[in-house]
Every structure is written in C-alpha cells, then in structure tokens.
C-alpha cells in the first residue's frame, strides 16, 4: 500500500491499461466468455473511478499548485523525466474521464457485437492515454500520451464506426497529427531554450514556466510563433472554428462510445492544453492575440448553432452543438479573467456530461431504429416515456436552463467575456438563444406529435442497463447546476494561479469575490 500511496497518479493512469491487457486473455469464444469480458472491463472502469475519487479526497485546494507529485528520471540525456501531478483543474477533468468511461463501457454492451475483445481493450487503452495527458507534468510525457491516444481512437472510429468510418478516422488522425507535429517543433525549441538559459535540457513544465522568451507587443515575436504552434494543435482538438471540420465526420461515424469519449474528454484536452501550456508559457502572445481568438470563439458559437439548426441527423446536430459549446469554452478562457476561466472550465465539464449523455441517448434510439434521421421519428415520448424524461433533462441542460449545469457555465463565461469585449459577448449571447432553438426544435420533432411511423409504435423503452447508464449523467447535470460551489471550491485557487501565470505582465484580478457571490445567488 505504501507504493500505491505515493504513486496514486501512476496507478490511476495505468490501471485501465493493465486491466485491459488481462481482459485480452479472457477467452471470448466459449459460452459466457463475452459476458465475463464485459463485466471485467466495466469493473476496471469502475475501480479506476473509485481511485480517482480518492484523488478528490487527497487534494487540498489551498495547498501547492501541483499535488500528489511523482517524479522519476526517464531519458536524462534529453532532459525528459516522468513527472506527474495534479491541480484543481486536472482533478475535475480526470474525474470526468473516469466517470464517463465505465458508463460508456456499460453503454456499449449491446451495441458492439464484433471483435468485442479488441473493442474493450482499446477503450481502456484510450482511458489510460487521456488520464496520462491530463496528469503529465512533462511536455514530452504529455506529447507521448497525447499522440498515443490517437491510436485507440483511430481504431475505434475506423473499425466499429458507421458507413464512412475509414474516411472519418483518417481525417481525424491526420488533422490531429499535423497540429501536434508543429507543436513538437515548438517543444524542441522550448527544451533548447532551457538549455540556453539554465544550462541543461528540460521538458518539465515547472522548469519551462521559468523561461524568458522574447515577447512583447508584436505579432512576429518568438513567443507568438511558439504560441501559434501550440495553439494550432489545441485549437484543432477543441475544435475551434475554422479547424472544426473533422469533428462532425468523426462524431457521426464513430460508434456511440467513441462519440461520447471524443466529445466528453478528447475535446477537453484541447482546452486543457491551452490552460496548462499555451497560456502560462506565452503570456505576452496571449495578451496580444486575445481578441482575434475571442472573435473565433464567437464565430464558433454562432456558426455552430446555425449549422446545428438545419441538420437532419440527430447525431450531426449534437456534433455541431459541440462546436458551439466549445466556442463558449474558448470565449471564457480568452477573456483572461477568473470568472471567465472558471466558467470555461466548468463548461468543459458540463459539455462532457450533457453532450456525452446526448450521444448515449442517440445511441439508444439508433440501436432500436438504425437511423438517426429526425424525420423518421415523432411522438417518441408516448412510446418511450423514460427515454423522453432523460432526453428532456439533458436537452435542458444543454440549452443552459437555470438549475442545470449548463447555465452556471455559460453565465459565468458571458460575464467574464463581457469584461474583455462587450460587443462580442452580445453576439455570443445570441448563441444561447439559437442553442435553445435547435435543441428544443429537435426535441419537439422527435418526441412530440403523433406517432406516424409504424416502426416507432413498438419501440421498447429504456431497459435497466440503459437507465443505469443514463441516471448518473442526469443526476450529475442537475447536481452541477445546484451546487457548483462543490466543484469551484477545489478548482478556484488553481485557476487563480493559472491566470497569474497567464497574465504575468498585468496585476491580478480580484474577481474571486464575485464568483462566490454568484454561487450563493444560485442556491
């Protein structure tokens, strides 16, 4: 236990991987073999979640910036070390990951019938990759996890996906690789700068934070180039307009589990990358380029909402709604104040919960009807009441109804963005309205009205397993809407520190008070 206590993060990261390796040994040909494998995988996801809850109890919000740190030498010749650590931001993203993974595993029990063994193995490998990327405190290590994660996702989309899965998988992989390779060049440069300034190679983040890179008020400074290299990689992942085109393809073609993980966690890695790397490393560049990025965020919000409105396919609609929601995240981050940043991180969690749930719901209905066309449905609420209730709550959370998680996030983001750029905030706020338009209109067409199609009359309502998958998500979206302070209290000091680094040139904001008042108002 002693080892486990001091290596909790390593345990969380690699548990799914080794669990999956053992799962590969379970014979699936015999009777009950597949069942055993499913239960085994689900247990793995659950245990990882339990351990990550331990992280919550161990984390002291008022303590050091990075906690539960682990460090070991890895490749000394390159200054690369195995360093892990967690702050209040990665804590929640880790919990989001471990929370979604078991649900996704449970959710694919019926959907996946082919190559079951590989499927569950890849899901667990993917979890390891994501957790590693959130917890790495070394750029090299981060990069390894960040890229290695692509492999399972590529196979998940490409093997178990829809009709155009190969195209979507390839597009997903190539888009991400192009972005991250340029980031790699920037990483080389940073590591080398560390050698120039401090006499030794290093890729540890805390070391790189100390670097002084020429910045200033310029679009062509080294800081700006480096920031752009990092930002491209992360903006593709987020995805920020105009780098979003891989997302609808990947989402629509991916199997349900793939879409949930993609929307729920992978996109968050983009936002997380900005928070952990791009902002603190290049504060001058961020200050300089703040407004162009706010514009892109605004475009993403409004454009995503408009395009979502006209989609005939439910899954595609949800995919474009992701573009819109992630636009809010970028808007909040680039407002560069505590309210905006808190809102934006909160929005990442919300989006993980509610969009994840939406994809699962779409998956439920797709398994029954093998279509996702909105026009194929109508009056579903009469035949599937339980399904309708879950769908309604999640839809409302997605349109940010007060009392749900979406409201807290979007409200804080708009509040923060107002301080940075009132004009753009006004435009972004229309996204809230369009958001209600496309979600509710879709809900109405699918759920209400007469049951026109013969096939729809005999649809079975949610079974016990599906209820078990959706209940935690529904509960989470309400809890997050009612007691946001539970989440904020752990992340706020970390956000302060992050902003202090990101705005190394300007005095710290004193917006903490306003956040606390808001939370009280919410209750």
């Amino acid at each position, binding site marked *: 236990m002693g080892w486990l206590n001091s290596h909790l993060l390593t345990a969380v990261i690699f548990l799914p991987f080794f669990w999956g390796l053992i799962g590969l040994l379970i014979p699936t040909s015999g009777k009950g073999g597949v069942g055993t494998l499913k239960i085994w995988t689900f247990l793995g996801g659950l245990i990882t979640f339990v351990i990550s809850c331990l992280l919550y109890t161990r984390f002291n919000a008022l303590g050091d910036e990075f906690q539960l740190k682990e460090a070991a030498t890895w490749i000394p010749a*390159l200054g690369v070390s195995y360093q892990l650590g967690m702050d209040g931001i990665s804590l929640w993203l880790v919990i989001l990951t471990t929370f979604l993974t078991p649900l996704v595993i449970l959710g694919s029990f019926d959907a996946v019938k082919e190559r079951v063994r590989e499927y569950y193995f890849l899901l667990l490998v993917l979890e390891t990759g994501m957790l590693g990327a959130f917890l790495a405190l070394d750029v090299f290590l981060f990069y390894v996890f960040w890229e290695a994660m692509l492999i399972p996702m590529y196979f998940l989309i490409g093997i178990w996906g829809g009709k155009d899965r190969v195209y979507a998988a*390839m597009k997903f992989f*190539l888009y991400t690789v192009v972005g991250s390779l340029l980031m790699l060049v920037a990483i*080389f*440069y940073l590591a080398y700068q560390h050698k120039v300034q401090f006499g030794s190679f290093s890729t540890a983040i805390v070391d790189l934070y100390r670097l002084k890179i020429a910045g200033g008020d310029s679009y062509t400074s080294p800081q700006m180039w480096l920031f752009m290299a990092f930002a491209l990689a992360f903006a593709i992942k987020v995805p920020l307009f105009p780098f979003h085109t891989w997302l609808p393809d990947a989402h629509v073609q991916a199997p349900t589990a793939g879409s949930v993980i993609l929307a729920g966690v992978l996109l968050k890695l983009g936002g997380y990358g900005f928070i952990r790397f791009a902002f603190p490393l290049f504060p001058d560049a961020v200050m300089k380029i703040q407004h162009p990025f706010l514009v892109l965020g605004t475009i993403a919000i409004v454009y995503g909402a408009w395009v979502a409105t006209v989609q005939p396919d439910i899954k595609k609609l949800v995919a474009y709604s992701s573009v819109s929601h992630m636009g809010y995240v970028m808007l909040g981050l680039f407002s560069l104040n505590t309210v905006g940043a808190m809102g934006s991180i909160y929005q990442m969690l919300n989006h993980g919960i509610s969009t994840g749930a939406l994809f699962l719901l779409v998956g439920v209905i797709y398994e029954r009807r093998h279509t996702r066309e909105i026009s194929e449905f109508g009056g579903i609420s009469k035949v599937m009441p339980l399904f309708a209730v879950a769908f309604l709550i999640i839809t409302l959370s997605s349109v940010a109804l007060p009392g749900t998680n979406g409201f807290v996030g979007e409200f804080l983001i708009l509040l923060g963005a107002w301080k940075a750029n009132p004009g753009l905030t006004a435009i972004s706020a229309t996204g809230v309205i369009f958001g209600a338009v496309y979600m509710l209109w879709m809900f109405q067409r699918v759920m209400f009205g007469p049951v026109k199609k013969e096939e729809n009359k005999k649809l079975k309502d949610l079974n016990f397993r599906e209820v078990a998958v959706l209940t935690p998500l529904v509960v989470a979206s309400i809890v997050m809407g009612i007691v946001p302070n539970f989440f904020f209290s752990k992340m706020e000091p970390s956000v302060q520190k992050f902003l202090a680094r990101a705005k190394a040139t300007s005095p710290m904001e004193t917006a903490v008070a306003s956040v606390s008042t808001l939370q009280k108002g919410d209750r």
Partner: protein
Amino acid sequence: MNTYSLIKPELLMLTKEQMFSLMPYFYMFVGALFTIILSVNKKLSPKWTVFLVSLATCLVGISTSVARLKIDTLTLFNGMMISDTYSHLFNIIFIVSAGLTILSSFRYLDKEGLQHPEYNVLILLAALGMMLMTSSMDLIVLFISLEIMSLSVYVLVGFRRADRRSNEAAMKYFILGSAASAVLLYGTALLYGATGKTQIHDIYTFIQTHPQSMSPVFVLGAWLVILGFLFKVASVPFHMWMPDVYEGAPAPITGFMTTGLKAAAFAAFLRVFVSLGYGSVLSETIQTHLHHILWVCAVLTMVVGNVVALTQTNLKRMLAYSSIAHTGYLLIGLLAGPKSDQGYSPMIVYLVSYAVMNLGAFGVLTLISTRDDGGLNLNDVSGLSRRHPWLAFSMAVFLFSMAGVPPTAGFLAKYLLFYSAVQANELPIVIIGVLCSAVSVYYYLRVLVYMYMKEPQGSPMKSGFSVWPSFVVAAMVFLTLQIGLIPGGILTVARKAMAAL
C-alpha cells in the same frame, strides 16, 4: 616509389589487441568460407548445415562485436582500418540484420523453391563487406569493401531467377550501382591525384596543412565521392533505382537492404565526412557549400519520397519510397550534426530504430507473401487482422513506428533527430520535415485501413505459420516498443560511438 617505402612490414604485424579487435571480421570471413565448403557437401544436406552454420557465425560475430564495444580505438594495418565503438556498433547492426534475414528466409526459400545454400553465403559476405566498409579509413579499402557488399547484394536481388521482375531489378541495380561505384572510384582517384594520399587521415592532414590549395581536381574528386555516397543512400535525385530494386528483390532481401545496406552506406558516408573534417577544419566556404547541397538533397528526398509513396499500392514499393523518405530525415541529421549538442548520435539511433522496424515489417511481408512474392498488394492484406491478428498487430506497431507515433522507436528517433536540428538552428528544414512526416502518416495508416477496417477479399491466402520469421517479428516488436519507452541504453551507446568517431 615513395609510397612503397612507407609500408613497413613491422606495421603489418598485429599486436594482441589488434588481433582481438579483428576477430568479428575474421569469424564472419571464416564462417562464409566454411558455408561454401558445406554447400557442396551433398551428403550432409546443405540446406540445414549451411543454415545452422551461418546462424552460428552470426551469433559468434555478434558476441565478439559486443565484447569489443567498450575497448579503445585502435588503428589497424598501418591506418587503413580502424576499430572503435562506432564500427563495432554498426557491426552489430549488420550481423544482426544478416542473421535475422537468414532466419526469416528459411521457410521463404522453401516456399519459393529457391533453397540454395549460396543464399546464406552471399548474405554473410555482404555483411562482411558492410563491416569492413564502416571500419575502413582508406578510400581504396572502402571501395573494395563496398564492392564485396554490392556484388553479393546484386546476386541476392536477382535470386528469384525465374521471375522477370527480379531479373530486371538485379540488372538495373547492377548497372546503376556499378556506375555509382565507378563515380566513387573516380572521385577517389582524383582525390589521390590532388593530395597524393588515399588514407582518409592523410587527406585530412593535407587539408589542414594546405587550407588554400583547394585545387579544382580536389573539389571535383570530393564532389564525385559525395555523389557516389548519395547514390548509395538513395537520396533524391539519385533514388530512381531503389523502388524497382526493392520491388523486384525477394522480400527478405529487401528487408536486408533497407536495414543493412542503408546503415552501411550511411555509416561509411558519415565516417568519411567526419574524418575529412566536416564540421571542424574544413573552411567556411566549403562548409556552407556542403550544407547547401545536403539541405537541398534532404528536402527533395523527403518531399519526393513521401509524396510518391502516397500513390503506391504494392507494399514493397511503398516501403521503398518510405525508405527514400527516411533517407531524407537522416540527411537532416547529417546536416545538423556539427552544430548540435548530440552530434551525429541521433543518426545512429535513427538507423538502429529504422533497422529494427524494417526488419520486423519485412519479416511480416515475408510471412504473408505467396509464391513469387505475390500477395503484397494493399488489397491482399485486406482483413489481415482477422486471419492473422498477431501479424496485423505487429505490422501496426512497425507502421506506427515508421510514421513516428509514440510510444515507438520511430517516434523517439525522429524526436532526437529533429531536436538536434532545432539546436543547430535549422528550423525551416525541421518544419518541412515534420510536415512531410505528417504526409507519411497517410500512407502508413492506409495499410492499417486495409488490415483492420476492410473485410477479407477473395479466398484467404494460404500462408503457413513458420516459427523462425515469427520469432524475428516478435523480437522486433519488443525492440520497437523497448527503444520507444526505455531508450537510455541505446542513447548511451550511440553517444559513445559518436565520441569515438
């Protein structure tokens, strides 16, 4: 006449240490001779005896080379050869790739009805040629060892006598290779004419003592030597032989060529380059001149290799173009070496990693190929993951490694290489390089698409399981991941080898 008086008989006497460091070459030579004798002894079933003896030779060769990794640099034969960590590290690469090629060819030769003992003899001789090439410090010795290697490989390429493609490849390779050897030899002759020396060290001293007297003859000679080497490493625009030869040669031999031959060409190139004072004593003008040549060649090689590979449907041909692309990356290493902290060690790591993943990939191809090297088109590997899950998995590991995706050897090697280039302030070529490797991801992944995401087409091919190639593939998978995750050992050795150079 003056030259003759310089050769002193007592210098040809070998001390104990010198004998010791010559042993790997000696064993390989004796092994090759012994296998020739065995191959005519029909009573003892040459198929098995030659196979076993050549494997034993490789094992002895590897262990003797490993034992010599740590010894100090020794000059041999009046300075014509050198024995240092660098040469012995490369000896290991050559002998390992020869041994693994022999292993994975065993069933292949049965299948093709080509079970002739000469095959193994030629591989051993080629390996010996490579070993001598890397350790030679004299342009004449270099040329002779290059020819030992090339002549053996010419025959091996045409080993599938009944196949037209194999014959064509051998012929093409022979003619173009001979032309390149002639160019190299002519360059050597001109250098001799300009300096009166053939030993690299003497030429180095000459340049040092006569910095101003760069006669046109010398420059032309140097140019021709460089051209010869650029041909051997298949840099664009001297790459045209490679795809045809790779496609026509028997699959295991193609694997041997991508690993052994390429490493040998690069090792000798690097040795000559560095020993002639590249990055140190050569004058500023020559340095920049060389830099520009290499820069242009590297960019062209990367772009042409990667872009043409996009359209290939034959796996061997695709890997040939990818091999050209990797030559381009390696040239970046050559370019950046003098100005970065790591020196040329990234190149060594890259060559080792590349050898590992290619031996593995060609091991897989050898296993799945049908008679006459058929069944190596993209369509033929459709649904391979269902027929041979482990082979498909191994191939996936090698392809991800070639594409430079972590956590594989290929990623680490690329990381090091580009990292050292950034240190050398070669940012533009690094950006071109990473974009090219983004392009390469497409054609590597396309193979995966066929293996994993398409249903098997036609009747499943019969390719029997055979234990030796499978062993090779499994070992290479292990090494690919090991170098990718725990690269400490290989980095240290590479650094040591560089220090010796």
